[in-house]
């Protein structure tokens, strides 16, 4: 209800008592019943005693021009009139006597009216009829004023939403373009790195087996030793074998344990001393391979985030997609106990790569969180089931629900609100740093299936539950 100017409250009370109290001019309307149609003759001003009305305008006769019938079916709501409001004021006082809107009762309502035959009461004291009705006109003006304010701010908000959507969509296009170009460039780097490594390996095998071995040590280096351990081993080798610092470091990489290094033959040690660069060459190529693999992953992530081309197939198995994700992350999950429990789920209309992406992003995060939190017996529990929701109209009733839970550290409340934002990350570990895109992608994909995400986190367990409706009722599919 809009604000009624204080000065007119009392005069309005008089008008309502004097003019809008005749039981003979009181009408009851049932919910949905029409008070007056658009364009219909109307010589009355109605006062809403009880209930409420909505006014609609169709575009069929707008501004006096007849529009084609097809376009006339869509009316839009112009305003609502609640208890204490007046309707058809303009038609009456402008003497056009035509209602500009269709007015329908939203609930069982009661109105009382005056018309052009109504006798003026106490004109000596209050002036002519029009004069007496000025408060009603002011009331109408105030109502229209507040309507304009509301509509303007609604429009602004709608524009803002539209702009944001437009920005997001052009960003998506831009990133898809960049992703495509980068994909080609990164592809070249990644393939050629493999070629160079293979060729060098072959060449070295023919040339000098010892150097080939050094190269392979570097290329396949997978040691995770702390800088400090490395340093102390290198120092030891430097003194023990009279090596230059660089060569000693290489030997420390190959044999972090100095006991192992000491057991090596003099020939091997001499070769390291002289030809440690072959190890470095291998190690450089290893880093290049890792970096291009990482870049490929980022490109794929950006593509998915940009909503690239997803091809959804009916009857896609959710269970299969979870298993695919687990296979994909086989390496990362070596130290983690994984248990899965599925009750039969119907296939859904989905792009399996998108589903795999969702699960693998969540699982990857779980691994990293448990890793960083130093969880002692890291475990991931995955359950999948079909569930039914009843009672809420318009919403799908059948969902597949997948929960991925881990026993890592809790996500604190502050972060809980931020985890789905792009760029949010708690990871920073060598080349395998966090881009902060993982959960943003999860959200994007799940949204596109009209699904929901629930996150629960406490000291015992952190779980992500994804619910996806089995049928897409209306939507983005």
């Amino acid at each position, binding site marked *: 209800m809009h604000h009624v100017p204080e000065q007119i409250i009392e005069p309005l009370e008089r008008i309502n008592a004097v003019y809008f109290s005749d039981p003979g001019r009181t009408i009851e309307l049932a919910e949905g019943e029409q008070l007056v149609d658009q364009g219909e003759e109307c010589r009355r001003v109605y006062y809403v005693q009880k209930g409420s009305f909505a006014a609609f305008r169709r575009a069929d006769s707008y501004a006096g021009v007849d529009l084609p019938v097809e376009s006339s079916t869509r009316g839009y709501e112009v305003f609502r009139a609640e208890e204490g409001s007046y309707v058809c004021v303009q038609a009456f006082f402008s003497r056009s006597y035509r209602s500009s809107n269709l007015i329908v009762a939203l609930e069982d309502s009661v109105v009382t009216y005056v018309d052009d035959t109504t006798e003026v009461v106490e004109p000596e004291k209050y002036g002519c009829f029009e004069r007496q009705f000025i408060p009603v006109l002011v009331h109408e003006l105030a109502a229209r004023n507040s309507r304009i304010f509301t509509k303007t701010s609604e429009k602004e908000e709608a524009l803002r939403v539209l702009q944001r959507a437009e920005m997001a969509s052009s960003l998506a296009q831009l990133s898809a373009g960049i992703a495509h170009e980068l994909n080609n460039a990164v592809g070249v780097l990644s393939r050629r790195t493999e070629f160079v490594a293979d060729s060098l390996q072959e060449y070295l095998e023919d040339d000098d087996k010892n150097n080939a071995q050094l190269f392979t040590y570097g290329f396949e280096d997978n040691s995770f030793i*702390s*800088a*400090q351990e490395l*340093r102390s081993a290198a120092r030891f080798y430097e003194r023990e074998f009279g090596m230059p*610092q660089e060569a000693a470091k290489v030997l420390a990489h190959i044999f972090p344990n100095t006991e192992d290094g000491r057991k090596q033959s003099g020939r091997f040690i001499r070769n390291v001393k002289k030809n440690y660069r072959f190890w*470095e060459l291998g190690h450089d190529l290893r*880093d290049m391979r890792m970096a291009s693999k990482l870049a490929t992953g980022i490109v794929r992530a950006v593509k998915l985030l940009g909503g690239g081309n997803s091809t959804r197939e009916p009857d896609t198995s959710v269970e299969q997609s979870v298993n695919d994700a687990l296979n994909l992350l086989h390496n990362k999950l070596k130290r983690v106990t994984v248990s899965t429990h599925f009750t039969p789920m119907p296939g859904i209309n989905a792009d399996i790569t998108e589903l795999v992406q969702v699960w693998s992003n969540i699982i990857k995060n779980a691994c990293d969180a448990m890793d960083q939190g130093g969880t002692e017996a890291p475990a991931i529990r995955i359950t999948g089931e079909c569930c039914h929701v009843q009672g809420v109209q318009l919403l799908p009733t059948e969902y597949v629900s997948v929960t991925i839970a881990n026993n890592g550290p809790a996500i604190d409340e502050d972060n809980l609100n931020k985890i789905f934002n792009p760029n949010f990350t708690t990871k*920073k570990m*060598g*080349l395998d740093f966090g881009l902060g895109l993982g959960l943003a992608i999860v959200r994007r994909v799940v949204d596109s299936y009209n699904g929901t995400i629930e996150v629960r986190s406490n000291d015992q367990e952190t779980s992500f539950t994804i619910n996806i409706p089995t049928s897409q009722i209306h939507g983005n599919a």
Partner: protein
Amino acid sequence: METLNIICVDDQQEVLDSVMRDLRPLTTHVRLEEASSVADCMQLIEQIDDDGDHVAIVISDQVMPEETGTELLGRITADRRFGKTRKVLLTGQATHADTINAINDGHIDNYIEKPWQPEKLLSVVKRLLTLYVLDAGLDHTEYMPVLDPTTLFTKLR
């Protein structure tokens, strides 16, 4: 000849590898050491000091898991034993506030942005090394190949 150390600090091994490689031309006359965190660097510095060797330059990343580069350089500045040590911040992610702190509290001598030009890094380090050698009162003729002639000339004039 006294042993001069240049320490690089970064939590990313790949970055450390690159810095070490770019500075390799200096290894004829100085030692290059690497540390993966502030704590690791502090331990290394103690060890170098125990051995009676010099910490000539510390090149540190800014954003690292436990403590930042600025904090490390600030601690070194506050330690009187390392008053002559030259400090470089090598980073791609420092905020405006980080930079201010690095200058005011870390008393850094140079700020290098990632990705860096190898020649630029090398020339900055040579210049700072020259300053250290002169400040520490060492015989600069022993280190000539790794010093910056212009700086040396200006300072000795």
